[in-house]
């Protein structure tokens, strides 16, 4: 029997939530862009900076060993969080964007031939679209877009029909950052694997909201960012199946990724270091590990249930406001609520909401082609995290009503 979710306790773990914005209580509803940090993460980074810091994998002195141990413990923490087989499959990168670029360039460089095809969905963030455009352009391959339905869910049958003899990669988001749709990743990956097609899942919007088990999902690559998981910015993770990573050449050259170097040539280090040239973001990895501890202490199922209740409350209340249109009504939806208000541009809505202490994202959400598809220039987007409460939702709805008043 688990204890009820204590959101007041959770809120007290996040120092920033007690500050005011424009003289109002802060209702932070932009966790989809970046989550806030709990005290546990701030303290873990602080402890590292004040007690452990040195470079990793380099020295014989005590601090170097302590820093290396903490950094590698963080890697093991990440492995457990996503249930990877080995820490050799956990590559630290700057974030989701860098993880996808790494695969698009390195995997694409050795795999793609003219006439090959890569499939992404119509929902993709620019980070899971533009790297593939670049890889296709470099290799003469074709990028194909799997369609979505009016609710924002992938049209699975149409996607399956697109898989062909030239399809080399399926790269899709796990949860849409605009419409909230949770894609049927298991089915997508199973269909691809049956046909010998590689898969990459953009997990940026998923890892803080549901249990991610890369082996159960059956993906070849999985990418996510720490700062959308209550951890520091500037660090993220590329997961790759060991056999695939092993077969790839390195990405960037430099320190740490080599075994031996002569003036003319070099040999490569083992996984995961082969893909980690240069001094990594050590404190970031340690902060990310602390964030994972924190999230698991709350329980991902409990967080998901809490966020789902907030989403339902906000959806029901916003639909009572005349002129509201929801963008994204898939049956299986994450903690994302995109909407437009007739007669009020999302950018104006964002300013008015900010004035009321409500932080949302207004814009194209790094998904310009999806905006075109939806026929809107932009949307307003509220996204929920473990610390949001009913008052945040009510403050949002009151501010939207206020925006209607301002625009008469």
């Amino acid at each position, binding site marked *: 029997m688990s204890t009820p979710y204590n959101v007041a306790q959770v809120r007290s773990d996040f120092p920033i939530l007690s500050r005011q914005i424009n003289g109002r209580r802060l209702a932070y509803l932009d966790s989809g862009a970046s989550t806030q940090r709990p005290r546990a993460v701030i303290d873990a980074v602080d402890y590292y900076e004040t007690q452990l810091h040195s470079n990793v994998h380099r020295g014989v002195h005590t601090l170097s060993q302590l820093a290396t141990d903490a950094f590698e413990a963080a890697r093991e923490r990440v492995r457990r969080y996503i249930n990877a087989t080995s820490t050799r499959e956990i590559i630290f990168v700057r974030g989701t964007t860098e993880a996808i670029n790494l695969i698009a360039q390195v995997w694409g460089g050795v795999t793609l031939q003219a006439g090959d095809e890569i499939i992404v969905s119509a929902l993709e963030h620019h980070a899971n679209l533009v790297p593939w455009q670049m890889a296709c352009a470099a290799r003469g391959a074709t990028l194909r877009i799997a369609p979505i339905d009016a609710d924002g869910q992938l049209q699975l049958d149409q996607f399956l029909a697109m898989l062909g003899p030239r399809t080399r990669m399926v790269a899709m988001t796990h949860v849409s950052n605009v419409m909230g749709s949770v894609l049927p990743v298991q089915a997508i990956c199973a269909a691809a694997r049956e046909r010998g097609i590689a898969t990459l899942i953009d997990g940026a919007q998923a890892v803080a909201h549901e249990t991610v088990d890369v082996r159960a999902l059956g993906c070849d690559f999985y990418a996510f960012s720490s700062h959308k998981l209550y951890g520091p910015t500037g660090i993220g993770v590329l997961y790759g199946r060991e056999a695939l990573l092993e077969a790839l050449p390195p990405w960037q050259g430099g320190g740490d990724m080599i075994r031996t170097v002569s003036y003319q040539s070099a040999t490569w280090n083992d996984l995961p270091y082969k893909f980690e040239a240069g001094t990594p973001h050590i404190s970031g990895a340690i902060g990310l590990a602390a964030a994972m501890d924190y999230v698991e202490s709350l329980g991902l199922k409990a967080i998901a249930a809490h966020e789902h209740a907030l989403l339902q409350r906000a959806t029901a209340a916003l639909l009572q406001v005349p002129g509201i249109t929801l963008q994204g009504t898939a049956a299986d939806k994450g903690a994302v609520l995109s909407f437009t208000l007739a007669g009020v541009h999302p950018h*104006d809505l964002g300013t008015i909401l900010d004035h009321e202490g409500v932080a949302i994202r207004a814009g*194209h959400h790094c998904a310009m082609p999806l905006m075109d598809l939806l026929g809107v220039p932009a949307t307003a987007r509220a996204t929920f995290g473990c610390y949001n409460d009913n008052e945040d939702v009510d403050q949002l709805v009151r501010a939207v009503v206020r925006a209607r008043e301002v625009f008469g």
Partner: protein
Amino acid sequence: MELNELYREVILDHNRHPRNFGRLDPADALANGHNPLCGDKLTVTLRMDGDAISDLKFDGNGCAISVASASMMSEAVKGRPRAEVDALFDRVHALLTQADAPSDATLFRSDGIGKLAALSGVREFPARVKCASLCWHTLNAALANLQGAAPSPISTE
């Protein structure tokens, strides 16, 4: 910093009923403006009579600040020679960005274009300055196109 200093009645009115909305065809010059941050897009078309802007229209999609700014600009520059338009651009730019710029309408009243002073509230909302200035940058690009420069989209980012 109050909302009604940003969303003044004249701005809301120009947003609801933009003046000179549409496209001139044929036009002597055309330029496209884009604010990638919020997705605002607008197109300015104009006709010249000698050195003066004889007609100007704009269309596109944007927030209230960008639509109202473009609408008020279209009224303000019509019939004006290039030199006056350039001077106006400088004054609007100052109005939008300089904390000590005169915010009352007297600055503009002598020109008979007092409405533009309604944009003075924008400078209290730094994230919105580009919304208000997009149309002016696009107008400048259109005027530059007149001189045979290669037309290129104007971005405020």
